[in-house]
């Protein structure tokens, strides 16, 4: 790929999604954007770049961004955040929100919705322990296609076998031909909408938990800082932020601090020192 084409395409992607691509990742551009070029009857990325230079087609730019930012997901990915929801977060929230009996969760960059729906299944499994409680999940993604897929709750045979125990498939899904759809009780707990994390979140309210896992790794440090600081403003004072295993807030912002006992879990720096750590973590282990 010509240097000027790489710079044009990667520049557009950074501007629209925050995705940072170094020249070594040019192969990623080629593998993901070639299908987009073909969709528009263009022979390759050089023609795609030429087309963009001559006329900025919004639909094409959107397709490019979606092709680059659509990532694989699985149910109960990494398991620990879900175990901690059950063993650490909910026991605290149950006390702290006893009057309101409501938990609000944001699954940021939710892809095809598996993280959100994993929580809904876990929530139903915990229902007997928290009678009268309400869970509200907002799932957001940059990709309109992913948001639509999330809303449908329909997954392929391959997808429902990734991370999902068979008992939960039997209990919460119905078969539709060669696809599987999560039930209406789970879908009713989730609202999915398009959102670009680089832009103003708008009136989203306050969340008790934000899952933003394996998203920041694609951003450059100033963008990471911007997203984290914006999230700090919509997280409850005793809320929890989950990042991916390879992500951190260290060196990016002082709004959050890691919870030492629980990797990937962060709380606001202003939160009480023992929040989600120490005795609660040991008890849950």
């Amino acid at each position: 790929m010509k240097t000027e084409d790489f710079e044009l395409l990667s520049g557009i992607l950074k501007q629209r999604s925050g995705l940072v691509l170094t020249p070594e990742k040019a192969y990623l551009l080629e593998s993901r954007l070639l299908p987009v070029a073909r969709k528009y009857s263009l022979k390759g990325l050089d023609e795609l770049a030429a087309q963009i230079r001559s006329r900025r087609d919004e639909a094409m730019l959107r397709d490019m961004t979606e092709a680059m930012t659509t990532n694989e997901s699985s149910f109960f990915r990494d398991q620990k955040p879900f175990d901690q929801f059950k063993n650490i977060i909910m026991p605290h929230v149950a006390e702290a929100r006893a009057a309101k009996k409501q938990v609000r969760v944001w699954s940021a960059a939710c892809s095809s919705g598996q993280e959100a729906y994993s929580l809904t299944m876990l929530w139903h499994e915990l229902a007997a322990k928290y009678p009268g409680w309400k869970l509200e999940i907002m799932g957001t993604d940059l990709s309109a296609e992913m948001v639509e897929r999330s809303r449908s709750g329909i997954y392929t045979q391959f997808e429902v076998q990734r991370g999902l125990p068979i008992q939960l498939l039997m209990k919460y899904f119905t078969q539709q031909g060669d696809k599987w759809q999560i039930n209406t009780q789970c879908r009713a707990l989730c609202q999915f909408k398009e959102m670009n994390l680089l832009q103003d979140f708008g009136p989203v309210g306050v969340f008790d938990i934000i899952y933003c896992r394996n998203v920041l790794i694609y951003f450059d440090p100033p963008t990471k800082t911007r997203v984290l600081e914006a999230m700090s403003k919509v997280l409850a004072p005793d809320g929890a932020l989950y990042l991916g295993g390879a992500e951190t807030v260290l060196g990016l912002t002082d709004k959050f601090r890691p919870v030492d006992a629980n990797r990937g879990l962060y709380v606001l720096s202003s939160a009480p020192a023992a929040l989600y750590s120490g005795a609660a973590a040991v008890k849950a282990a």
Partner: protein
Amino acid sequence: MKTALIVDDSRVVRKVARKILEGNGFACDEAEDGQQALTACQKKLPDLILLDWNMPVMTGIEFLPKLRELPEGGTPCVIFCTTENDMSHIQQAIGAGANEYIMKPFDNDIIQGKLVQLGLLDEQA
């Protein structure tokens, strides 16, 4: 080292499954049908049985209750691994005492995920 018995009448499937399971630290034996698997289990019970449904001589669903009747036959984790991909087969398998169910085709990620869920493998870092 944990042990696995791969029960499938397809040599190709056994080969692929063996490669995946060995890659996850299992020592593997193979059987071509339920009867061969039962004979093997009467001698020594493995930690894991990867079990096809449709096989000559004795099917997977015929084998499973016979396994569970053996002394300590409740011990091995049984994962059905079959092209039967409808809910009624899944319910029948779990009802008969299978621990998990994989719908073919499968890959390393799917098998690894099931092994973690069954406590036969630590979660990958």
